[in-house]
């Protein structure tokens, strides 16, 4: 089981949460070229190791937040509020 640290509620059982996928993709500007939109919608880094993700505390405070989790081991490395920078909290990722 994953014990997920919600930045608002503290550590809770994974069944209270919904994963929302890769937190590193950035929405391009409205007039960005089609390739940038393609990359935003479809392409994913899919790292084998630390992965920055969006999670929703759907069975709790219903807030979205960021979580850094290792995809090889499922170890949870850090969490941050949605507008905080996970990188400054957990150290540079790459």
């Amino acid at each position, binding site marked *: 089981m994953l014990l997920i640290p919600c930045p608002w509620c503290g550590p809770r059982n994974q069944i209270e949460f919904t994963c929302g996928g890769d937190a590193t993709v950035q929405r391009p500007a409205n007039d960005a070229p089609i390739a940038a939109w393609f990359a935003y919608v*479809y392409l994913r880094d899919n790292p084998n190791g630390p992965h920055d993700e969006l999670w929703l505390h759907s069975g709790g405070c219903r807030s979205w937040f960021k979580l850094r*989790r290792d995809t090889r081991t499922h170890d949870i490395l850090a969490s941050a509020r949605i507008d905080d920078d996970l990188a400054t909290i957990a150290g540079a990722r790459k």
Partner: protein
Amino acid sequence: MRYSIFSLARNALRHHENWPLAWRSPAPKKCYDAVIIGGGGHGLATAYYLARDHAMTNIAVLEKGWLGGGNTGRNTTIVRSNYHLDPNAHFYEFSLKLWEGLSQDLNFNVMYSARGVLNLVHSPADMDAAMRRGNAMRLNGIDAEFLSRDEIARRIPNLECSADARFPILGGMLQPRGGTVRHDAVAWGYARAADALGVDIIQQCEVTGIRIERGAVAGVDTPLGFIGTPKIGIAVAGHSGHVAAMAGLELPIESHVLQAMVSEAVRPVLDTVVTSGAVHFYISQSDKGELVMGGDLDFYNSYAQRGNLPIVEHVAAACLALFPSFGRLRLMRTWGGTVDMTMDGSPIIAKLPVPGLYMTGGWCYGGFKATPASGWLHAHTIAHDEPHSLNAAFTLERFEQGAMIDEKGAGPYAWAH
């Protein structure tokens, strides 16, 4: 040696001490006409069809672990072709036809069992979807039959068919030719048949880099040294993104964990495959007697080849809702496989943008049943440097072109398919 009743009898008289090895384990040559990365069912099938149908016998299959140790050995062994969209229907039907003759083709018993795959219908909306899909299948020449609740109750006596069931059963769509196949035998059968045609199968040889010279594929780096080749086929589903990245490509794929589990072995209690979309659950009984079950992804990216308990509980709960009598059984083992989840739920069997580079991957939940057709079409694409009409739609470029093959209409969320 050809396996037959005579070879069995001959070896029985010699106490089974003289069976030859089913395949060689040669040292890699300096170069090959093609290198297939991945020694699971898809990679071995690719090599077999390249050698058998395209006269390419100077080829190697490189496997980082052991044959069939990835998803080929981790699935629920179900084969079917009950798809709605034309590209998927034609592709999986081609695969099912190859399954039907595979034991004879390979001279290896893969234990294809056409025990039927039944999709349960639990609601009026389910009924509409099942009728639409069943009719689409029949228009594509695929077998589909609607069974009433009474007919299902007669055929599967331990299924909970009463009106006050937690998930009432209104009927079901049956594909009679669907069923199960012995998964390990698929890897072994393809490996033996490919080896007999001269293919070098090299285990414990992980590809660590793909070399590109003058814009085209030149070979692969491995712990056993550089291996030169003008054509590379990637068949590593679960790790497609990681291997494609060695050639500088980013894919519309996420890696997720899909769990499966078996009960303790019991006498025959279930002679068909039962699935339910409403609870997302599928179950069959293996020849050993275990009930083999599976359900959803864990819904977060993972390469760990193991999942977590909430999905095990979900699968067990779904099982008991449909088969209350199985509540006395103990769960014996659970495991997980790393699957490529694409952004539209359909595979990629295609030429990649680097000349000489090809892939079959992005299998989502459906890789095992695709094995023969995936290998056949991957081999065709490699040999002709262009896709066959059956895999022409499964390109990498379809995402950028808006030509998705989204069976569920779930949108660009890899885990939603």
